[in-house]
């Protein structure tokens, strides 16, 4: 079998399928890998050590980690509409034909023009932007910001619409276990045994966690094999679900969790966002290794010690041929031993501790590996990859001692310690506290996450809780799983903790940094945050300038603010900051840890709300007719309503003008089905409506209609509509199209919380009825044949009345109401008959030249009459009195909602803005909607604003309505309206009724 890539080892590699070679390209270069490779393992196998350029300084960078914490290896994957920027190589599974491009370099990765920044690094310290781009002030918008924007950003967003498919999925579970390492597997086993429904989510495609690479035996077999078998066994248990490649991104209140799944290649869904409601959550999220900060510690070839053995064991990739291991703990000795066992050279182990001891240290010494104690790496040679390091003793003062030794190597495996992954714990409200003996942040028992119903609902276990041995992981995992499932019924004995065979480790120490030599002493090549190029020197500067709290230093230096969110850099940064400022870490704390744990795609957040399903859309019964007849739709709430019906090459304005003159001359019809309709019924319905409308409704006779206004308790108008009394105890209340939900909730609130003694039921019947308005001088002639059997003569159906009947089995209501000033009717039938009614009216209207008209014609015609529109003439601060609708506010009623508000001094005071009509001096000029009237002593005060403004085809001139201070006292005067570029439009104030009654229909 062929071995793909010069750094691929001939045997082993737990994840790769050597029978399935894959081709891919990296910056156009053809490379090969295997199924099961990540992009990172495939690149390393091909000897591609330089993979990226850093964000600010364009320093050459290599793969640093093997998991979600990777700070360097971000790529653009795919092209065209399927291109995705900023894909982390360690999380991206290789696919055949994958096209991968490096980012943040020009013209290419090896020769990058931006690398000049690195030479200027001393000129680009932390806070550079804040200090430099302050002056001159105007330059920020025109010069600095556009320049910075061009330079900023990691990848390039694709220009085409995303061709991939995303979705969301809701799931409820008793217990959510995050992480399928030994801890998570044990937790899931215990929770399932206790009878709980369990969801086990693992961010990688594989169970096992550290067992995959650490060589620990569980129950006598290799830990990785045990984990695979255990995962399979769990998946067969009823009530247990395992999801791999599923990252827990966030944990919110009440254990609402967001999981981000990457289904495999070829799946119809590219990403799936799981919205999980969990009773209890076990966080078996492990720990992340910390790098060590030393001069030029960012050179390709410097890698986390655990990652080096991950690549070796899991993907059969030799991350180097001659290694130096730099550590402050025992765990990294495993890497030295693993490299040695694989036949690679280990030049030496540099241990920061004065006298390392323990079984792992002894094993390394036994293998003849040199251990340099109390030492550090003080310099790195090699620009695009490590060639050698200089090692020196580190004195207690922190200064390098002598002798300094140069060691040739191409891999530096580093371990500064381990940080438990407690991000989700913090999302849920838990706090962390520095444990100085163990050198890690652990859950603060005094500040746990919010409980659910008074019971702890988030449990940390395993390495995430500071339990690092496999045995401790299994034991704490099982305990947490059992706790989480408590009360689920089954009293099954706790599963026994599997036996493990692992060397004992000495409590982990930590090493933050090593001093540099020569030029390296400056600290500006000691990288703390690789992705954002934050250095030791930056942190020193921040501290010097007073930004010494972790939150201030973060913002001043951008530490931890890159797309990797500082997974490998935050804790070292905080540790170093504490050292610089001479504080203890336990007093400085962490920065706030917020969701998401790792970046998730915007596509997954949008889910299926894209394309035609971008938002929920409501259509009326004659919708197909509207579409077939060229309707130009506008959104009204969720509704799609025809704005107008342009014919041939008509413009919108021409169509609206034609529709209006059609109505005024003969007859027109509009689909009014969207109008809100609330049925209010019961013996107390009249009393109830008297309280919620400003006018008297209880005196309405059955079969009669009345225009009504609804105010909130402050006295402001918020909805209007025609109320029809259907019978003694039942009213049909029309509302605005967009307002029915609000009005319904308003009525229910009063009925349920204040007036529960009233015997009234409210049902929203909007959807039950289709409604068509017929308006114009010939409306009756058009309508008559369609409702044959119902008498709509003027005697039987005077203005503001209603008749109903059942025609051929179809309940039909006819209202004589008008919103245009013309003779007008509205006909309502059950929605299923709506399309048929529409067509019948059209057919009946054809001999009369009937036109279908849209919302704009409706709006212009009502403005010609001076009728208000909720949302145009009202904005939540307007009373009926302001609008001149005092006639619709009862003075006889004892009380109603808004009565007290309207009587308050401010609402009753003189000088409030009142509704007026406006006629521009130049009849052709239409004042922009919202334009401000200016006046006052200096002629520069805003004294009003335009609420509606149209060209009126009926009058052949522009008309507008406005709310103007003391408007009703200004009749006949001329106001100036300020519009763009300092020009002004002059208009005369008139009564807001431009068209006198044509049919006497509308006004009450």
């Amino acid at each position: 079998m062929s071995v793909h890539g010069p750094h691929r080892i001939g045997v082993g590699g737990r994840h790769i399928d050597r029978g399935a070679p894959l081709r891919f390209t990296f910056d156009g270069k053809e490379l090969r890998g295997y199924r099961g490779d990540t992009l990172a393992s495939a690149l390393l196998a091909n000897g591609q050590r330089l993979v990226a350029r850093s964000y600010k300084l364009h320093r050459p960078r290599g793969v640093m980690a093997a998991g979600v914490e990777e700070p360097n290896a971000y790529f653009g994957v795919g092209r065209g509409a399927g291109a995705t920027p900023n894909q982390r190589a360690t999380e991206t599974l290789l696919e055949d034909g994958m096209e991968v491009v490096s980012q943040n370099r020009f013209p290419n990765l090896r020769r990058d023009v931006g690398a000049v920044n690195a030479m200027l690094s001393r000129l680009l310290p932390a806070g550079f932007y804040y200090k430099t781009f302050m002056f001159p002030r105007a330059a920020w918008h025109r010069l600095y910001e556009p320049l910075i924007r061009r330079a900023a950003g990691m990848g390039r967003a694709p220009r085409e619409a995303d061709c991939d498919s995303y979705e969301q999925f809701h799931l409820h579970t008793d217990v959510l276990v995050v992480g399928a390492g030994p801890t998570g597997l044990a937790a899931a086993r215990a929770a399932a045994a206790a009878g709980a429904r369990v969801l086990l989510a693992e961010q990688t495609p594989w169970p096992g966690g550290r067992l995959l690479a650490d060589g620990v035996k569980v129950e006598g077999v290799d830990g990785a094999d045990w984990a695979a078998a255990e995962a399979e066994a769990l998946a067969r248990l009823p009530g247990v679900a395992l999801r791999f490649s599923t990252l827990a991104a966030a944990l919110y209140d009440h254990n609402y969790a967001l999981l981000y799944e990457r289904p495999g290649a070829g799946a119809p869904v590219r990403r799936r966002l799981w919205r999980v409601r969990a009773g209890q959550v076990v966080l078996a999220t492990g720990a992340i290794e910390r790098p060590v900060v030393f001069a030029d510690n960012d050179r390709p070839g410097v890698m986390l010690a655990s990652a080096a053995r991950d690549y070796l064991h899991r993907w059969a990739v030799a991350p180097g041929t001659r290694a130096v291991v730099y550590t402050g703990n025992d765990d990294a000795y495993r890497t030295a031993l693993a490299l040695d066992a694989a036949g690679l050279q280990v030049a030496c182990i540099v241990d920061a501790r004065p006298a390392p001891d323990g079984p792992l240290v002894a094993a390394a010494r036994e293998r003849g590996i040199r251990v340099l104690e109390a030492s550090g790496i003080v310099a790195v040679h090699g620009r695009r990859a490590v060639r050698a390091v200089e090692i020196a003793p580190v004195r207690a003062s922190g200064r390098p001692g002598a002798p300094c030794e140069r060691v040739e190597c191409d891999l530096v495996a580093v371990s500064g310690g381990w940080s438990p992954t407690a991000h989700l714990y913090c999302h849920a409200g838990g706090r962390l506290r520095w444990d100085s003996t163990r050198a890690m942040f652990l859950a603060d028992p005094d500040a746990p996450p919010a409980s659910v119903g008074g019971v702890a609902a988030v449990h940390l276990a395993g390495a995430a809780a500071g339990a690092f041995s496999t045995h401790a992981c299994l034991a704490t995992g099982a305990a947490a799983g059992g706790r989480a499932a408590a009360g689920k019924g089954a009293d099954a004995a706790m599963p026994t903790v599997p036996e493990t065979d692992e060397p004992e480790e000495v409590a982990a120490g930590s090493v933050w940094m090593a001093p540099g030599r020569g030029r390296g002493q400056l600290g500006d090549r000691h990288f703390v945050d690789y992705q954002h190029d934050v250095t030791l020197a930056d942190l020193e500067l921040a501290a010097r300038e007073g930004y010494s709290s972790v939150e201030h230093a973060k913002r001043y230096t951008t530490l931890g603010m890159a797309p990797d969110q500082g997974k490998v850099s935050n804790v070292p940064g905080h540790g170093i900051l504490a050292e610089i400022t001479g504080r203890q870490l336990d007093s400085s704390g962490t920065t706030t840890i917020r969701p998401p744990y790792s970046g998730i795609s915007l596509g997954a957040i949008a889910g299926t709300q894209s394309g035609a399903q971008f938002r929920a859309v409501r259509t009326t019964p004659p919708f197909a007719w509207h579409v077939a007849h060229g309707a130009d739709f506008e959104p009204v709430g969720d509704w799609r309503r025809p704005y107008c019906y342009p014919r041939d090459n008509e413009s919108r304005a021409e169509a609206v003008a034609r529709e209006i003159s059609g109505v005024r001359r003969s007859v027109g019809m509009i689909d009014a089905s969207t109008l809100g309709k609330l049925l209010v019924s019961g013996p107390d319905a009249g009393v109830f409506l008297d309280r919620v409308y400003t006018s008297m409704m209880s005196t309405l006779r059955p079969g009669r209609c009345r225009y009504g206004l609804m105010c909130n308790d402050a006295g402001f108008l918020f909805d209007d509509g025609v109320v029809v009394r259907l019978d003694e105890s039942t009213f049909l209340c029309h509302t605005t199209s967009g307002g029915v939900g609000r009005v319904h909730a308003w009525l229910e609130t009063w009925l349920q919380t204040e007036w529960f003694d009233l015997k009234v039921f409210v049902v929203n019947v909007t959807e039950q009825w289709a409604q068509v308005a017929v308006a114009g001088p010939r409306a009756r002639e058009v309508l008559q044949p369609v409702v044959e059997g119902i008498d709509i003569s003027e005697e039987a159906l005077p203005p503001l009345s209603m008749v109903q009947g059942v025609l051929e089995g179809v309940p039909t209501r006819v209202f004589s109401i008008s919103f245009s000033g013309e003779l007008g009717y509205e006909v309502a039938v059950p929605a299923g008959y709506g399309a048929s009614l529409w067509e019948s009216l059209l057919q009946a209207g054809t001999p009369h030249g009937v036109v279908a008209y849209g919302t704009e014609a409706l709006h212009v015609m009502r403005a010609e009459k001076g009728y208000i529109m909720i949302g145009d003439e009202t904005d939540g601060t307007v009373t009926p009195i302001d609008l001149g609708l005092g006639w619709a506010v009862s003075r006889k009623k004892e009380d109603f909602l808004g009565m007290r508000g309207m009587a308050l001094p401010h609402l009753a005071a003189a000088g409030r803005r009142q509704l007026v009509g406006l006629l521009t001096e130049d009849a052709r000029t239409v004042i922009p909607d919202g334009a401000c009237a200016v006046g006052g002593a200096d002629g520069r005060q805003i004294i009003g604003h335009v609420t509606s403004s149209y060209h009126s085809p009926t009058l052949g001139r522009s008309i507008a309505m406005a709310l103007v201070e003391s408007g009703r006292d200004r009749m006949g005067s001329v106001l100036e309206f300020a519009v763009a570029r300092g020009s002004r439009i002059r208009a005369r104030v008139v009564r807001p009724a431009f068209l006198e009654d044509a049919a006497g229909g509308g006004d009450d």
Partner: protein
Amino acid sequence: MAVMTERTHRQPDVARPAVGLAVDIGLRPPSGLITVRVALRAEGTGAAVHQATGLALPGRRQRSAAGDRAALWMAPDELLICVAAEECPAIIEKLEAALAGTPHLVVDMSDAWSVFRLTGNGAREVLAKGAPVDLHGAAFRPGMVRRTHFSRVDAIICQVGEHPDAFDLFCFRSYARYVSECLARFATPGSLPGILDPQ
């Protein structure tokens, strides 16, 4: 001179279900749907409803059925009675008569709702893509009713059969077109995660 076209009852235009969907999805033919507002706990309500419809009063979040009639619990003071379209007016009359002594409101809502029937193993997962409801087989059983949201639209979900699973999804008529598009998208073959319905 009568120029009437025939009065025809039409269903909303909905997206035609794609061939090869993971679950069988169809719009139900028109039926009689009656909203009854009455205090369900009040004495005599159960007897009155039974007298008019032959249906037992459903428990909280339950559905009671007899023949092809059913009563869905909507709220402590609300039922949705489902009957054949042609018997709807008669049942309304009977309900009015039976409830005459109690404060109540009976409304024909047959045209207000559109009802989709989802049949087949996988129906739970199609629904779980849109509704934040626990649809696990142990939690959502035949005879259960939930008022909820489906892809941001008010909805009622009700399990009407098992082996294979069958669910009715009610949405308001004006949203039927949108909901049908969502359903077709959610049921894309191969897209079900297989967690509620092992595949």
